[in-house]
């Protein structure tokens, strides 16, 4: 709502062209909102609704045409056919594993950036973490295809230690996903830790706690909401991914690959739509849980 001062001003200067806009805050808001809401409503919200509707339609097995007959069959198939159930749980498991790996890797980096590095070093580290974020997502996944390849860099480095590349598969997919989303975990934790005043750590030390105790009892609890905030990115991005698994996953299947195959080659859009609702439901549950930790405010 426009402040009352502005209303008085608009009134005082008298009627003029466009004064309608400045006088009525509600109308102004409405007119400004109309184009973006029309776009998002038509191009997106309607599309999401249509997706839900399509998932309740069926597919003619012979012609491949979508038949507008209401049915829960697509959802029943998801649950009844063990392969799809396995793929769904596997995807959620990998997303969770990726999130844990990223949290473990990101925490020391973020802590070092926020509390140990000099201001100059901190600036450079922020850039060093951000740079890969701008490097093409596809190129990064492709880079790991090179890393994991037979006789590739991992094989070469691991040879003296008897370590072999895991080859293309779910292990490679997990590592690649953890690599791709790591900056999304580092940055929120860094931002969260930077807000914690140093005096808290000093107080903990003054009260007799060693550095490790301070880390465990003070730093970790304070960083937790930021970790949850970061995990929303890593978890959601992993759930919906199908590029990385296609590039380094070998024959491994995740929700994304099944959905993609059903839109393209298998051409069963209703089933693809039903399967695509799985990550949405999982994310909604996850967001609801994250909300309780207060993590959403620190996003």
């Amino acid at each position: 709502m426009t402040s009352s001062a502005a209303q008085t001003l608009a009134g005082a200067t008298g009627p003029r062209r466009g004064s309608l806009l400045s006088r009525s805050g509600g109308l102004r808001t409405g007119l400004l909102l109309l184009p973006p809401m029309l776009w998002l409503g038509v191009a997106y919200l309607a599309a999401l609704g249509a997706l839900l509707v399509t998932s309740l339609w069926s597919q003619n097995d012979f012609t491949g045409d979508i038949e507008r007959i209401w049915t829960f069959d697509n959802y029943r198939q998801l649950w009844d056919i063990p392969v799809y159930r396995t793929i769904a749980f596997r995807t959620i498991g990998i997303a969770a594993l990726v999130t844990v790996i990223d949290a473990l890797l990101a925490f020391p980096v973020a802590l070092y950036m926020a509390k140990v590095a000099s201001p100059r070093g901190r600036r450079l580290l922020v850039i060093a973490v951000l740079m890969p974020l701008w490097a093409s997502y596809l190129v990064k996944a492709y880079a790991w295809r090179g890393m994991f390849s037979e006789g590739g860099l991992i094989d070469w480095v691991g040879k003296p230690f008897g370590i072999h590349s895991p080859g293309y598969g779910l292990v490679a997919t997990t590592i690649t996903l953890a690599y791709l989303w790591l900056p999304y975990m580092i940055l929120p934790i860094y931002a969260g830790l930077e807000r914690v005043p140093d005096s808290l750590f000093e107080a903990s030390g003054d009260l007799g706690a060693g550095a490790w105790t301070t880390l465990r009892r003070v730093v970790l609890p304070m960083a937790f909401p930021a970790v949850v905030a970061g995990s929303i990115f890593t978890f959601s991005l992993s759930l919906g991914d199908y590029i990385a698994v296609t590039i380094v996953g070998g024959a491994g299947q995740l929700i994304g690959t099944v959905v993609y195959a059903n839109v393209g080659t298998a051409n069963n859009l209703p089933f693809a739509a039903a399967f695509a609702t799985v990550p949405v439901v999982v994310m909604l549950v996850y967001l609801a849980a994250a909300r309780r930790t207060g993590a959403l405010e620190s996003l």
Partner: protein
Amino acid sequence: MNDGRLKAVLRALTGVVLLVVYVPLLLVMVNSFNVDRTFTWPPPRLTLHWWNVAAHSSGARHALLVSVEVALLATAIALTLGTLAGLALRRTRFFGRNVVSLLIILPIALPGIVTGIALNNAFRTMLGLELGFLTIVVAHATFCIVTVFNNVQARLQRLAPSLEQASADLGAGPFTTFRLVTFPMLRSALLAGGLLAFGLSFDEIVVTTFTAGPTEQTLPIWIFQNLFRPNQAPVVNVVAAVLVLLSAIPIYLAQRLSGDVVSGAAGAH
């Protein structure tokens, strides 16, 4: 944080993580000079041959052009719609405010396959459209609005309304006030939001594969389709190396723009 040992451990871990972050990117760079067509390490010999081949690859060049065109159009739409939404929500406290914010964030918050398949289904099944250049632009603009909106909103929150009130007081209409007062104050926020939108669109592949159709190729789609072809692998390596090098540009621009790189990245996804 005065324990020397803890600091040393943190420093070492940070070093290791950053090493793991940069090694694959360096590998891409080195591989673009690799004589061999495979990823075998170490490369037997280095050559500039593939860079020359890539420079003459019409497929890659055409895809690059499409990517730039899509990104420019999507950014232009996102700038318009994101600015309007940001201005509308300024100092307003109406009940739908959170709904509007949610609606703007949703296309990027939901997994890419969901946004992709929803748009694919809407374009093909519901509207009966052919997938192509236009559908890519619409899809990209939809998830790019949020970066502009976030930047505009953050800027507007810090601006006092007094300048605009003074402008109105001096007899300027709302459009003149926007042109002469509000817009100049928003300019760097719009640049930052536009930069993010461009980067987001230029790099996007998941939603794009669902909305591109068989004829149009953006650069990421071109890379993805040529990735598994042994003949094209060296050219893909060069394109990948170029993209890694190009990623320094937005970082440099963001630094110049504000020096506040963290807030810029927060809107990146």
